[in-house]
């Protein structure tokens, strides 16, 4: 250890002698490390964004939608049947042990009016559990209650986009808005959730008690008054998602009187599977980017090896002299290894700084979210040191194994 410090001193002196050469050699490592840092930042930024989007759906969420219907031989797409009801929701909540909560939900578009402003938005009729399942917070005011649902109360919860478009900064709480000419009192506003994984604005919504929505807004006919657009189901935990799906399928098939040879008249979708696949692909992408960037790091390492070989040749006499005055194989090896590692680590540090700056620029100019993790920086630092050791070893060994007589005689 006591020999590392003098070796570093010698290394710095040697590198200072050929400033331009040292800088150009380092440039390879700088570009390599910088590229790795920036690419990993872009990759993990993308992954993080997808994770956030998945979290915005709510955790452990399963969606049940009605199946397709066949009318006069024409098969309509799934979701068009009216086979799911609020009673199904209650039955699932009661009979499926893996299910934490169920919220029926129906959606429709409608024009909303407040004062002189109007806005077309999505109206969701649902129950208070919906807020829990989708993990939607109340920004101001309060949520509607089960009692509001039972009593068909005319209260509404507004998403941020709706608030912005109707109220121009005024406080919406307690104000009366009209949805299809029906007056609703604004009970509360929702915490913004941003875009959904499919790019929809999740804040452009109004939530109403499902009973009120069905009777006053959607205007469904009596025969289907009880039917709902979908069921949002929350499993008790990630490991309960599959059991919950199986239990729900059994309960619904029984309730819908389906024979074993009949297809389901509903579809169960596990959103997490879909988005996890998306996350995996973005992960693969970021590994790919990092791998491509690593190639330039290796090229930088070859540059170090090249310059170190030149340096060993140039300093053959110096090596011979050091051997003559007692430098052992190890001493010479250490000296040149330290020199190579100094080059690569200096390059690595500059590369890290440039990589961080580059990823900031990418997020500013390309509008991509980037995430610089301390782990990636540490890894880049260690990796650049390893590049120095790996590519410095061969030249250092060559120097250490020189014959002192030949080396002293070298012109």
């Amino acid at each position, binding site marked *: 250890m006591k020999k590392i410090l003098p070796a570093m001193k010698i290394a710095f*002196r040697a590198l200072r*002698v050929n400033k331009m050469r040292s800088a150009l050699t380092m440039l390879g490592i700088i570009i390599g490390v910088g590229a790795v840092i920036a690419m990993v930042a872009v990759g993990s930024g993308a992954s993080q964004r997808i994770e956030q989007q998945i979290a915005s759906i709510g955790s452990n969420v399963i969606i049940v939608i009605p199946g397709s219907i066949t009318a006069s031989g024409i098969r309509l797409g799934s979701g068009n049947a009216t086979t799911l009801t609020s009673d199904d929701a209650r039955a699932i909540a009661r009979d499926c042990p893996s299910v934490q909560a169920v919220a029926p939900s129906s959606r429709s578009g409608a024009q909303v009016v407040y004062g002189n402003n109007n806005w077309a938005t999505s109206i969701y009729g649902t129950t208070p559990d919906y807020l829990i399942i989708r993990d939607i917070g109340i920004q101001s005011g309060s949520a509607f209650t089960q009692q509001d649902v039972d009593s068909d109360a005319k209260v509404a919860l507004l998403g941020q986009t709706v608030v912005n478009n109707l109220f121009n900064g005024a406080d919406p709480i307690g104000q009366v808005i009209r949805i299809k000419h029906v007056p609703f009192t604004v009970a509360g506003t929702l915490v913004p959730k941003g875009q959904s994984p499919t790019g929809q604005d999740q804040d452009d919504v109004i939530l109403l008690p499902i009973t009120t929505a069905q009777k006053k807004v959607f205007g469904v006919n009596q025969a289907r008054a009880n039917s709902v657009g979908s069921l949002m189901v929350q499993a008790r935990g990630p490991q309960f998602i599959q059991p919950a799906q199986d239990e729900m399928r059994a309960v619904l098939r029984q309730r819908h009187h389906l024979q074993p040879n009949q297809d389901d008249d509903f579809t169960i979708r596990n959103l997490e599977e879909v988005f996890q696949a998306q996350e995996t692909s973005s992960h693969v992408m970021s590994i790919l980017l990092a791998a491509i960037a690593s190639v330039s790091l290796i090229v930088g390492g070859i540059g170090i090896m090249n310059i170190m070989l030149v340096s060993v040749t140039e300093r053959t006499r110096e090596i011979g*002299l050091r051997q*003559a005055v*007692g430098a*052992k*194989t*190890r001493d010479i090896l250490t000296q040149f290894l330290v020199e190579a590692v100094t080059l690569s680590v200096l390059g690595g540090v500059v590369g890290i700084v440039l990589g961080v700056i580059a990823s900031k620029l990418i997020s500013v100019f390309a509008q991509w979210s980037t995430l610089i993790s301390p782990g990636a920086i540490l890894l880049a630092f260690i990796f650049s040191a390893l590049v120095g050791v790996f590519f410095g070893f061969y030249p250092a060994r060559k120097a250490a194994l020189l014959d002192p*007589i030949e080396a002293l005689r070298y012109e």
Partner: protein
Amino acid sequence: MAERLIQIRELTKVYQLGDVIVNALRGVSIEIERGSFVAIMGPSGSGKTTFMNIVGCLDKPTSGTYILDGVNVSTLARDQLAEIRNQKIGFVFQQFNLLARTTAVENVELPLLYSSRDGVNHGHAQALRALDWVGLAGRELHRPNQLSGGQQQRVAIARALINDPQIILADEPTGALDSRTSIEIMALFQKLNRESGISVIVVTHEPDIAQYSSRIIRFKDGQVVSDEPVRRPRNAQHELEVLPREEAAETEAVAP
């Protein structure tokens, strides 16, 4: 303590240069006592350089034994030889071989870097003393390109002395110097030989220079052809006192 510092018996060295086999040394036996001042002479190709390389533990003999300070070094491994060179041998070269862009005192300290002995912390003071001893006080922070040839060789001698060696090996130490400076360097060798009892072996092809030693060994065709004492060795210090001072020459050479 062995009275003989160096005991060499039946030393041979065979090189193979391509298809040609070169018998550089063909059975050399020499004993050198502690504190002696020996000159080695001979034409090029006589084997004197090979002999010096083996004596300096830079090379290993093909056969024969070499006992240095009681240790049979002919069988030692590479790193053990490095240790011996560091502790027991000081080298002085014709081309000085100082590290460029490195101050005089740092050059002198160089062997301490590879020394396993304790007390390296005192190395700096030791190096300053060594430089003072060779007459370079005040030039400690000069770099080789700021020193004259004679001064550079003095730095090299200070470097050779730093680890208190048993023996100094000088290969044509005056080969690159003018005659007055050569005498100054020989005076330094004589002084350290007399005052510190360090043995000195000088390789030279100049008969004048050899006359400063007390024993001359001549090589030819890989064998010792003559080995005789010098009846009345020249005294370099006395000669310098008689010579007119040439301060100008010294300062002229300092120019960078």
